[in-house]
């Protein structure tokens, strides 16, 4: 099977690739979001140990 034929997937190509694309995007977001959160968290922990803010996501001045 050639690459264009593979990508075409018969007449349902749009639906198949949209579904896989959406699932891929969700996996990607699920990986990236906690990693960004982790970086911010570490920055905050290093900056201020006695942080009384209740929300992990809120920025301190």
């Amino acid at each position, binding site marked *: *099977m050639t690459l264009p034929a*593979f990508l075409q997937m018969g007449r349902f190509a749009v639906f198949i690739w949209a579904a896989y694309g*959406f699932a891929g995007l*969700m996996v990607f977001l699920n990986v990236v979001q*906690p990693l960004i959160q982790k970086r911010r*968290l570490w920055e905050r922990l290093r900056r201020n*140990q006695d*942080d009384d803010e*209740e929300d*992990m996501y809120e920025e301190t001045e």
Partner: protein
Amino acid sequence: MKLVHKYAAPKRFYELAGTLTPWFATLTTLLFVSGLYLGLYWAPPDYQQGNAYRIMFIHVPNAWMSMMAYMIMALFAAAGYIWNIRLADILAKVTAPLGASFTLTALVTGSLWGKPMWGTYWVWDARLTSELVLFFLYVGYMALQASIDDARRAAHASAILAIVGVVNIPIIHYSVYWWHTLHQPASLTLTSQPKIYITMLIPLIVMSIGFMFFYLTMLCVRARNEILWRERRADWVRKLVESRP
């Protein structure tokens, strides 16, 4: 039970999850790569659906995980509520966004499969509606968690929502038998022969285990963040932060 108490200490779990994460992540990657190869290339087209059935390889694992994650979330929430296990509260909380994303993926990919096969993106039949309710349960749980500042009170209140919502899980599962739905009944059950061909079964199993390990990987990563934040005033976190400037 001794083992439970040993690892239920947030510090111990933080370390354990740190060790497990790279292994889980590697397994997930291997399973996803081989599952995609098998599902998109190796498996032949279906005689009736053509290539469209390949959406199954992401739709079904996500639908399974949407329900499994909910059961896990409710069990952790209940354990946290009954026995006051802090780690259980944390694991329940971080499972919610993962479960919500599995549910949303199942709904969207199902809809993209429904259009070419049924001729419509959406019908209000029992299976689809109960899965949508599951999504709202996850969202409601997360909203409730976010609306209460105190971690213990947030865990208590949302645990009740999670436990009551469990009633929806058998409804989703049996909806295709109890009502006349457009959605087909299960192709795979524990008690009978699979109703799909082996070339479809193998990629489906590989992708399903892949999504299971994906859940475990992200559970570890998210739980570590949450533990670090909640324990930020504890000695071990202070030492950990100082040791990594």
